[in-house]
């Protein structure tokens, strides 16, 4: 299959390219940038994709998308969420281990990656459980899990309470240089909390989670990272103080990376409004000042990547009083529009903004991806930056319709998604 993507504006953050260039794809790879490869001309492309008015960039790389398989198929299936990924321009994603059963056995990981190996499906990288059952007590067989396809080891959003176990888990992972992905939230300070411990929680009578829950856990993680030399990636940072600590740790020579969830870039505690269960997220939406620090931190690179933290929840799970409602928001199809919105609002060049959802997260995953260089896998997203995407239940392909943005319209609509040179999504088909 030979594909010619013509008349587009090519943005490739990996090479800092932002230029009108055609792209040529053959045998699943990028074979020509600007000009076709030699010999292309004889019978030309099998297919020509018109990218007039569009931006052509690497397929998005999402560091956190819950596919809900195995175990939670009533909330979402691999099919529904992969359709959502393709429609959102996401061609590669990491999924957290908090499935049921949790991803703590090689067989489960192999089954998931096997099930996900279809041409229309994004590349799936499971994050293996760092401890069995995510219980924070015993180590998983990390070497075996790695062979089965795990790119990193983490706890999703369940903390390891016992710091001795955390230390040993990080030491063991460091033995094999496996990355450790950890969310920084002290389980005691967060106990029973459902919202940021601030003005809104005080007003609504919701139990609060103080910023100290993040900073204390982060301090522990950073100290142990220094002790063990483990490659640590901090997931879903939520506070200004947290960002400052990451920056200080790097200055002190600790090789730590971190990401932020896309909702935390745009929303804050105020958006809980009148108990809007769609704003029930983990970590909680914090103050406006925290949100502004996250926006600035992502722009400067203090925060390395932006992820959807995609968490499909069925209606029954959200039609509950705020504190009883299930946590999370659907995000795969909102990652691109919300990235563009952030970039526009802080006047960030697209080539930098798109790096946070392509080449930068690819580097954290440790895979060769997120680039449009010659010879790269043809994982490509073509989107119209001006076409509106209206967030409605009908427009969302994810089985999870749970988003605080329902009814909102964003510019930025995917026209084509290619995975390994295969047209996985065609937005012109309506």
């Amino acid at each position, binding site marked *: 299959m030979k594909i010619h993507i013509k008349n587009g504006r090519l943005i490739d953050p990996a090479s800092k390219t932002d230029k009108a260039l055609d792209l040529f794809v053959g045998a699943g790879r990028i074979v020509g940038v600007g000009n076709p490869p030699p010999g292309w001309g004889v019978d030309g492309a099998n297919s020509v994709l018109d990218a007039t008015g569009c931006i052509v960039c690497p397929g998005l790389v999402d560091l956190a998308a819950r596919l809900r398989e195995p175990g939670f198929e009533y909330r979402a299936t691999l099919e529904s969420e992969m359709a959502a990924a393709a429609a959102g321009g996401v061609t590669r994603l990491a999924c957290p281990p908090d499935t049921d059963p949790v991803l703590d056995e090689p067989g489960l990981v192999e089954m998931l990656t096997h099930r996900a190996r279809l041409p229309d499906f994004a590349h799936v990288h499971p994050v293996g459980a760092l401890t069995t059952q995510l219980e924070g007590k015993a180590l998983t067989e990390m070497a075996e899990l790695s062979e089965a396809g795990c790119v990193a080891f983490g706890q999703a959003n369940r903390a390891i309470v016992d710091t001795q176990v955390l230390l040993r888990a990080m030491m063991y992972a460091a033995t094999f240089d496996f990355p450790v992905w950890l969310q920084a939230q002290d389980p005691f300070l967060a106990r029973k909390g459902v919202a940021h*411990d*601030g*003005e809104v*929680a*005080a*007003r*609504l*009578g*919701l*139990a*609060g989670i*103080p910023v100290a829950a993040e900073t204390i856990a982060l301090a522990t993680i950073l100290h142990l990272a220094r002790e063990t030399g483990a490659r640590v990636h901090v997931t879903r940072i939520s506070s200004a103080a947290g960002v400052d600590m990451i920056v200080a740790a790097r200055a002190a020579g600790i090789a730590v990376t971190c990401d932020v969830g896309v909702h935390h870039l*745009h*929303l804050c505690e105020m*958006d809980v*409004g*009148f*108990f*809007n*269960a*769609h*704003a029930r997220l983990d970590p909680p939406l914090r103050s406006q000042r925290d949100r502004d620090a996250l926006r600035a931190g992502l722009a400067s690179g203090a925060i390395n990547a932006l992820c959807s933290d995609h968490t499909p929840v069925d209606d*029954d799970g959200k*039609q*509950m*009083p*705020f*504190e*009883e409602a299930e946590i999370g928001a659907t995000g795969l199809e909102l990652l691109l529009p919300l990235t563009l919105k952030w970039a526009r609002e802080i006047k960030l060049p697209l080539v930098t903004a798109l790096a946070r959802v392509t080449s930068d997260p690819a580097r954290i995953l440790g895979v060769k991806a997120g680039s449009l260089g010659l010879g790269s896998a043809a994982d490509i997203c073509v989107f119209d930056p001006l076409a509106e995407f209206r967030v409605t239940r009908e427009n969302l392909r994810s089985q999870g319709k749970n988003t*605080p*943005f*329902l*009814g*909102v319209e964003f510019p930025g609509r995917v026209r084509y998604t290619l995975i390994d040179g295969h047209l996985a999504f065609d937005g012109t088909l309506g």
Partner: protein
Amino acid sequence: MSFMNGGGNPQLNRHGELNHLLTIEGLPREVLERILDTAAPFTEVAEREVKKVPLLRGKSVFNLFFENSTRTRTTFEIAAKRLSADVINLNINTSSASKGETLLDTADNLAAMQADMFVVRHASSGAPYLIAQHLRATGRDHIHVVNAGDGRHAHPTQGLLDMYTVRHYKKDFTQLTVAIVGDVLHSRVARSQIHALTTLGVPEVRVIGPKTLLPTGVERLGVRVFNDMREGLRGVDVVMMLRLQNERMQGALLPSTQEYFKSYGLTPEKLALAKPDAIVMHPGPMNRGVEIDSAVADGGQAVILPQVTFGIAVRMAVMAMLAGN
């Protein structure tokens, strides 16, 4: 940013009239005053030979109590019956919820029984909002929701009856200093009192308590914070005591009831720091010897029993106004 359930004040209808009573926060001063004015003549109903007016005749009021409370449920029941409504009491923590029925399923089922009003008590903050939003989304806004206490969030009829009591004894809100004492963190009553007092123009509202029992950022609600009770009571016109739940002794919030009483219990000696004509209020049920000394609870400055009497009139006023809108 706009989102699905967030926009507007969900308790007002298109004409800005009260359709549900979910919280005092955000209600205009005139609405609060109208409720208090409407309550005044209802206090006389109780003194009649036939303690009934026909304002809610033929209407069905469902008391949905997902959390036990004999006292509040009884006062709502009396209020509805004095308005001639049919009253159905459901203690749901002992029926459907334990069978796995969701809150909204329960509401749907009762709505299908032609309910006119839901009086809702729930352990989770915001539960009555969820019901009101659901009724609106399904075109059944004619069913009115009265919040009878939700989690730590609000207890608006308690706040209103407290305002009625203050007005009865002190007349002018704009000259008062009011202190709210105790476990503000876990108190829906305190939140409703704070919003009511600030809306009605009380120039100084104080909250008094140990740091473990005051919410983060409480000063943003427009109150002055005192950790020393003696300092906080100096010169106040009204003392509103809060109930201290026994379970607060767990979870490292307080060391003991004895120590709490020493620091934050209202004794005659501490009350003497307030104005000589200060009144003492309590939402009940009281813990004598924990937050309040019996000498104060039974003393001449306490207006705790009149609060209960006024509570029925205020609840009658709220129900009558909602049914009339």
